[in-house]
């Protein structure tokens, strides 16, 4: 069976995703982009264009470029919305059969150059239903997905706003069928977002989806019951979006420039185009930085010469420009959640369990903050807000095609599993969030000469020091043949099966002796316990890091002392008493501070000893040079 394509058929942009290896994946279109403009056109030469190609010729061909057709699909010509949109849309909207809507596109009578060129091809001069226009977009997505995946796509899940009525849903389904897709499900956009975050598994929860897109603002209140997601209320503003933010910024910039330079750049199309791009970039940058610079050299010129545009913009300024829009969206949200039915869901704001952010504009920190303040909880925003609906559509597709079977839902390790090593350090073996079953092998050695046993201390937790983590098991591996430190090879294997049972085995490679332990409860912590442990780890991150550095420095000190003592012993009488006693003094000094001293103390004693040891080698080489010049390779000793 082929894959089912998940499609977010948006007002401004569309996106698509499929399930792959049990995970949703956004598919790029033929142009290499993750979203496709929902625009269709018939070019002046009679070619039909879809997506970004249609958009690129829209300015010079506005009458034959259809965008935002989602605002018309499944509606009656007499609908208030259609009548309102008709006034500002540059393409022609007509009354079709049975009071429906039709749009005119590619009609040569509206394009004198086409007539003069005699390109009145068949199929050009006609009106299209919004379904047909949407079908062109869907067909492009379908063929781009097929090219990307190398397989035929015959079925799809398509999303629609929660407020779409039966007629709009049916029309969207028809669009899919016209495009050659069997529409397996028409899915609500907010439900798709909830699916993307896996919230459909939460029972009896109230979810609010705050969707601030490029051109529309939708708010939905969902209730998750037994495997059913019910839409309790919808609201929003179909003519409020991120584009309004851009317009506000441009207006502000034009105004400021007029004040500063006395030049009105709004009349210059090229300057305006550059300003528009700069405004969009500034908006994006201010989501991550607190200020940005708008730098447009040679924006225009007058009698005095070229003029430049250089202005700093702060996040606070941007927020003050669009404050009214954000407040309006929050007011609409409050109303949709709290107003009694049928206007709203009739919930208390406190009753809302989860909040999801959808739409590119929700990247703005001020919006995230406003939503968080309204509900008193952190909204979900981990998945790219431009893609979350398509991701959810793919998840639904996966459920339909049977990818997301419970039996195949593999668990992950909630916390890191580690082993204690020299100096009380917790050395991770299996990091948190590793999918099980899994296994990890690492070879360890001894810390002291002639050590015949090692202790295996199995730990769970995120802290870098063993003592701060939870002990899962402790056992000894005995019978290691006596040898210098670092020589024995003890292989430690951590293995977790699909049921979360951890087996730890330690084996001495030389003697073949092994010891193991089985821990049943390695993943059985409660959600609260896991969160508590993770929180602790985050809180102690910096102090833990310094403790770990101290432990590692001490380990290094130990190792250096060992090396120094060995070097002195090996050198024997090749070094003078002065060097020997100097090194010994430094060894003693380091020994004194290594266990009790602070990090800086140990570090400096360690550095001093390291410097001193080098003198051993130096002395030996010097001696060798003095005595052994004739033996050097350049001058072979005559027999």
């Amino acid at each position, binding site marked *: 069976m082929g894959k089912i394509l998940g499609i977010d058929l948006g007002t401004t942009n569309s996106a698509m995703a499929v399930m*792959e290896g049990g995970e949703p994946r956004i598919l790029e279109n033929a142009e290499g982009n993750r979203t496709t403009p929902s625009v269709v056109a018939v*070019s002046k030469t009679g070619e039909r264009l879809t997506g970004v190609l249609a958009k690129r010729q829209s300015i*010079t061909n506005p009458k034959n470029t259809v965008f935002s057709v989602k605002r018309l699909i499944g509606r009656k010509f007499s609908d208030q919305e259609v009548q309102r949109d008709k006034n500002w849309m540059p393409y022609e909207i007509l009354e079709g059969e049975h009071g429906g809507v039709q749009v005119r596109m590619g009609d040569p009578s509206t394009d004198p150059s086409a007539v003069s060129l005699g390109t009145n091809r068949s199929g050009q001069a006609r009106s299209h239903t919004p379904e047909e226009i949407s079908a062109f977009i869907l067909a492009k997505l379908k063929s781009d997905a097929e090219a990307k995946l190398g397989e035929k796509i015959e079925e799809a899940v398509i999303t629609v706003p929660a407020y779409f009525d039966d007629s709009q849903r049916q029309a969207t389904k028809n669009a899919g069928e016209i495009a050659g897709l069997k529409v397996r499900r028409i899915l609500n956009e907010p439900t798709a977002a909830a699916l993307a975050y896996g919230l459909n598994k939460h029972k009896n929860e109230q979810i609010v989806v705050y969707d601030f897109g490029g051109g529309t603002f939708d708010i939905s209140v969902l209730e998750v019951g037994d495997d059913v997601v019910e839409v309790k209320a919808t609201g929003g503003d179909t003519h409020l979006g991120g584009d309004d933010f851009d317009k506000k910024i441009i207006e502000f910039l034009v105004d400021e420039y007029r004040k500063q330079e006395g030049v009105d750049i709004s009349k210059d199309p090229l300057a305006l185009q550059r300003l528009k791009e700069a405004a969009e970039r500034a908006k994006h940058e201010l989501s991550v930085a607190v200020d940005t610079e708008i730098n447009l050299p*040679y924006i225009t010129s007058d009698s005095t010469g070229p003029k430049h545009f250089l202005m700093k913009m702060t996040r606070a300024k941007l927020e003050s420009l669009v404050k009214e829009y954000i407040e309006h969206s929050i007011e609409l949200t409050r109303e949709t959640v709290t107003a009694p039915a049928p206007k709203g869901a009739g919930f208390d704001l406190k009753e809302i369990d989860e909040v999801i952010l959808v739409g590119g504009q929700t990247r703005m920190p001020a919006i995230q903050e406003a939503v968080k303040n309204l509900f008193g909880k952190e909204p979900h925003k981990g998945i790219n807000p431009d893609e979350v609906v398509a991701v959810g559509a793919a998840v639904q597709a996966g459920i339909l095609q049977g990818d997301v079977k419970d039996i195949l839902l593999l668990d992950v390790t909630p916390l890191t599993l580690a082993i204690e090593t020299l100096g009380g350090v917790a050395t991770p073996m299996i990091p948190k969030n590793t999918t099980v079953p899994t296994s990890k092998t690492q070879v360890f050695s001894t810390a002291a000469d002639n050590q015949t046993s090692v202790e295996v201390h199995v730990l769970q937790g995120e802290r870098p020091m063993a003592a701060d983590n939870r002990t899962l098991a402790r056992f000894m591996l005995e019978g290691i043949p006596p040898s210098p430190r670092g020589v024995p090879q003890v292989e430690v294997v951590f293995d977790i099966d699909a049921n979360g049972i951890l087996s730890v085995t330690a084996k001495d490679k030389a003697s073949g002796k092994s010891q193991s332990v089985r821990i049943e409860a390695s993943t059985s912590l409660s959600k609260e316990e896991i969160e508590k442990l993770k929180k602790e780890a985050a809180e102690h991150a910096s102090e833990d890091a310094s403790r770990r550095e101290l432990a590692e420095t001490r380990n290094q000190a130990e190792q250096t002392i060992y090396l120094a003592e060995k070097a002195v012993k090996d050198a024997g009488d090749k070094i003078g008493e002065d060097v020997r006693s100097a090194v010994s003094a430094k060894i003693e000094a380091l020994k004194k501070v290594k266990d009790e001293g602070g990090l800086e103390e140990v570090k400096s004693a360690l550095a001093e000893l390291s410097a001193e040891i080098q003198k051993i080698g130096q002395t030996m080489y010097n001696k060798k040079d003095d005595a052994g010049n004739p033996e050097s390779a350049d001058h072979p000793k005559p027999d």
Partner: protein
Amino acid sequence: MDEDKKEGTDAANDAPPEEISEIEKCRKERDEYLAGWQRARADFLNYKKEEMQRLAEIAKYQTEDMVKEFIGVLDNFDLALAALSESKKAPTSGEAGAGVPTPKAVGTEKGIYMIRAQMEDALRKRGLTRIPVGPGDKFDPALQEAISEEESDEPPGTVAEEMKAGYKLFDKVIRPARVKISKGPSENTQNTNNK
């Protein structure tokens, strides 16, 4: 051997029906699990292959964002050079030899031109190429974006003028060339030509 086999079969046949159904169930489960395991294994191998391709693709286009920012700088160099050559044309009032650029101005212009070339060259080494476009070319929305329409001597529907250079990073158009589209010659010109 044959006897053994026969005995085995008989034994299975003799088994009580519930045991047979149990065996059947186990066989079915075994087949299902084996198939699931094989599928998972194959999925993983395929995933690995695709991931390698994807990584290669990511590595190829990892500089895209940075290159895009530098394209903006190239644009501004173009504007600076255009402004410089414009200022050379303008007569400097009151000076002897008005309109003739000083050697200093020529040197400055050449210097800026060389810096621009240096930067474009550095970007070219990272896969950037300029999309060629000129007046009279057929408008191609795959490579160009129309920003306005005006009367010109070029045939209607073709490119009248390139306003901003377009660029490709390897095979991907990272910015289409911004062009003015020709409406054809103005009626006045046409009439004059016809006469």
